[in-house]
Structures are given as structure tokens and as C-alpha cells.
């Protein structure tokens, strides 16, 4: 029982990472109509920035600002590329998937080439923090608490923004019916740039929470989580925000439990096998496609 609770906590913390990523990914999908596969790479670059600024200064505020602003800048920089792609006639959403894959390849290769000799970067212990609660094997570290709370708060704020503010209503209007949104006079491009901004902020906060939870970043971290992010959003149903929330947390828990209770190195396949079976049974995702 002790182990079970401890596994559950770590699974939830891991799941909150997936939730943050999937939420940003789905927003891009809904509002900007793109598959932003490079989103986790942006988060990782932002983690690298945090690491670099952390080395220069100990001021946490500056670190957070630097991480968030790099993420915003990268997100906004990708906007003209994706806008150009979606404006080409006869080109569908796959084109943005392919282009963002190219962008992800570039970012990953530059990180493994040029930053810190390609070594993973580690955050100092006072940034990561130790346990804040401990009872036997059940422990909650500062990173886990922040990831869970921060994840929940960020997603709640995001959902509030989406469902209870005018700007959120415009996002949803564009997601739901671009033509009608155009008719009522919503400025599509301006709103979609704003969505890149929001995703950039979300990415920056994800980067800070990751760095506290994982404690390090490596050039290939983005690729590992990108696949899971894509898988979660498809299993939940592309563009389904609530579904992504549930499935992200579930994936984290399934992974932790699989490792905890299944023997052999097969455990890392279990999460993938579950996702494969779900997708084969329900090709549209568990909660339905929303685009």
C-alpha cells in the first residue's frame, strides 16, 4: 500500500507534465489549426535557457522571466512559418506536422552539437529542492508539488481563460467554425498570434516546472516527450482539451504502475501497448476528435 501510494504520487507528477504539454499542443491545434510537434522542443530550449541563466545569476525571478520569454519568442517566431503554411491553398494540417518535425530536428541537433558539449544539463539542487513531505517511502518533493500544483493551476487558469473570458470565447469560436468566426468580425490572425503567445507562456511555465521535477534536460528529452504528447492527444481525441487532461494524467499513472508492478523490461511497452489497443479500438480517440 505504501508503495502503491508512492507510485501514484510520482505517476501524477509525471502525468501533470503530459497534461501541460498536451494542453498547449491542443490549443495550437484548435486555434491555429496546426500540429505543433516542435512544442516540447521549445520547452526544452527554454529549460536550457533557465539552466544557463541559473549559472549566471541566482535570482529566481530573472530565471523564470528568461525561461518564459525564450519560450514566448520561439513560439512567436514559429508563427509566420505556420501562417504561411496554412495560407497555402490545398495544403492540409499534415503540412504543419511535417514542418514542425523539421523544426524539432533542427532544434535538437543544435542542442546536441553546440550546447554544453552535448552533455545533459543539470539544475542545481537548491533550484530543484528536496523533499517537503516524507513518510517512509511516500515522499513528496518540492518539484513534484510544484509540478502538480503548478500544472493544475496553469491548466485551470487556461480553462478559465478559455471558457469564461471573451478572448477564450474567440479562441473557441475560431476552433469551432473559422468561417463563422470570420463573419462575426473576430480578427483571425491577431487572435491566432495571441494563441501563440499563450502557448509560449504555457511552454515557459512547463519548462520551469519540468526543470524542478526532472532536475535536468538533455537534447533528446524533447523527442521522448513529443511522442508521448502526440500519443496522448490522439488517444484522447485530437483537440479535446478535457480528454487530454484525463489521458495525460492516466498515462503518467499507467507508466508508474507498469514499472512498479510488471516485471522485466517489458514495462516500458505497457503504456504504448495500452495506447495502441485504445487507438485500434477507437480510431477517433477516447473522447472524440474536436477539430
Amino acid at each position: 500500500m505504501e508503495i502503491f501510494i508512492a507510485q501514484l504520487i510520482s505517476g501524477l507528477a509525471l502525468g501533470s507534465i503530459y497534461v501541460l504539454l498536451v494542453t498547449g499542443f491542443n490549443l495550437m491545434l484548435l486555434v491555429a489549426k496546426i500540429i505543433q510537434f516542435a512544442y516540447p522542443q521549445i520547452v526544452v530550449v527554454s529549460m536550457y535557457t533557465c539552466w544557463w541563466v541559473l549559472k549566471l545569476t541566482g535570482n529566481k525571478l530573472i530565471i523564470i522571466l528568461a525561461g518564459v520569454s525564450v519560450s514566448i519568442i520561439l513560439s512567436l517566431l514559429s508563427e509566420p512559418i505556420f501562417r504561411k503554411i496554412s495560407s497555402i491553398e490545398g495544403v492540409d494540417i499534415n503540412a504543419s506536422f511535417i514542418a514542425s518535425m523539421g523544426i524539432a530536428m533542427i532544434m535538437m541537433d543544435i542542442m546536441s552539437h553546440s550546447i554544453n558539449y552535448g552533455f545533459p544539463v543539470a539544475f542545481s539542487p537548491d533550484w530543484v529542492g528536496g523533499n517537503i513531505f516524507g513518510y517512509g517511502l511516500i515522499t513528496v518533493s518540492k518539484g513534484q508539488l510544484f509540478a502538480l500544483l503548478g500544472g493544475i493551476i496553469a491548466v485551470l487558469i487556461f480553462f478559465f481563460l478559455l471558457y469564461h473570458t471573451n478572448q477564450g470565447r474567440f479562441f473557441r469560436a475560431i476552433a469551432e467554425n473559422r468561417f463563422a468566426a470570420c463573419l462575426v468580425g473576430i480578427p483571425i490572425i491577431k487572435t491566432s498570434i495571441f494563441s501563440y503567445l499563450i502557448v509560449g507562456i504555457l511552454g515557459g511555465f512547463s519548462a520551469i516546472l519540468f526543470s524542478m521535477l526532472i532536475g535536468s534536460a538533455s537534447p533528446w528529452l524533447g523527442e521522448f516527450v513529443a511522442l508521448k504528447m502526440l500519443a496522448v492527444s490522439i488517444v484522447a481525441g485530437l483537440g479535446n482539451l478535457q480528454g487530454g487532461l484525463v489521458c495525460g494524467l492516466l498515462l503518467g499513472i499507467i507508466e508508474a504502475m507498469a514499472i512498479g508492478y510488471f516485471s522485466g523490461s517489458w514495462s516500458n511497452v505497457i503504456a504504448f501497448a495500452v495506447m495502441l489497443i485504445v487507438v485500434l479500438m477507437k480510431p477517433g480517440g477516447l473522447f472524440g476528435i474536436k477539430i
Partner: protein
Amino acid sequence: MEKINNILEICNLSIAYGPIKAVKEVNLEINHGEFVALIGANGAGKSSLLKSILGINKAEKGSIFFLGQDITRKPTDKIVSSGLSLIPEGHVIFSSMSVLENLQLGAYQNLADFEENLKRIFDYFPVLKDRSSQIAGTLSGGEQQMLSMGRALMSKPKLILVDEPSLGLAPKIVTDIFNILTELNKEGYAILLAEQNAKKALEGSHRCYVMKTGEIAMSGFSTDLIDDPKIRQAYLGGN
């Protein structure tokens, strides 16, 4: 600045989809408070024309003036905020949002008198008031069309463009909708109505343009056209 009589003026407008010309050299004019019909067969270019006024289709040649201002190259949101509104064909609504949210979105460019506007629209369409918290996708076809109209009115437009409001609706509801349009016109809204149902359109409107394969084939007062044998032959079933 010269005095402007017309609310909308279209000069030599052409629209093309790739090699296909949908609208060729069209001239059209609407005065303040006027109810103008645009009739023509399916594919004559009516919808293309309306969409290009709102800047959704980009004009290839020619220009569009609204209240004396050139709006040909302006983005749609600017055009809507200057007082134009389109009720598109086939009930285009935000079907997973509530009726109220749909109306709120309609007020995107005009949030100032929101409550007042809403009350006005509930007066026109009492059914929407009863269902204001219902999800729009669950409304009936006629109700969806009313919602679409209500949403367009939320921005307090000076000119309403209506595209095929009768499409796919029962005759009784079509009559209701035309009555509402006439009523709106009486309140001072200028209306440009594109409609295949020529009889209904001609009955309600002051003036009428007849479109044929992308060109204006004929124009005049509706009362004149309704008696025109050619029109009767082509659009009103010969009797």
C-alpha cells in the same frame, strides 16, 4: 466631401477562383434604408459576391465602397466593425456553444450596448430567449437560422447581407423569416438579400438585381420586375 446617398457601392467587381471567373464586372448600389434583392439561379455568383463584400473572398478587380469608404482590401474584422453583417447560407453557427455565447460572439465588434442589443434580439426571436442556455447544435433548422440572424444583428450593422435564408426550411418558417426581414427594413436597416426564391424576394424588396453566370443581367424596381414576362418565364415558373 460629397454627400453620399448610397450605403454600398460596388464598381466593376470581378472575382475569380483560379481560372474560373465567378463574378464578372458587377456594378451594384444600395441606398440608405433600402431592401435590395439579388436573384439568380444556383451558381450565378450571388454568394461569391456577398462574401467578397465582407472581404472573405478577395476581389480580383474593381472596388467596393461602404459609406463612402473603400473597403475592397480591408480585412473582414475591420469591415464588420464598420457596420456590415452577413447572414450566411446554411445555418452557420457555433454549434457546440450555447445560444447566448453565439450571440455574445456576434457582439464582438460592438460590446457597448450588449444588454440592450440582446433584449432587442430576444424581442425579434422570442424562441432564442427561451433557449438561451441550450447548446446551439441542438436547435431545429429554423431556430438555427434565427440564431444566425440574431448573431448578425448583435453587431448593430447598418447594412445586412442575407444569403439564401430560405434554404432547406419549411415554407411557414420561410414566411416568418421574410416577415422579420421586412420588419427589420422598416426599422431602418438596409438589406441586401440574395435569394433563389425569386417570388418571395421580389415581393419583399424595393429594388432587385438579376444575376446570371456572374453578371448582372437585369435590374430595376421589384414591382416592375415582377411583371416582366422574361423574369416570370425564367424565375417565377411562367405564370
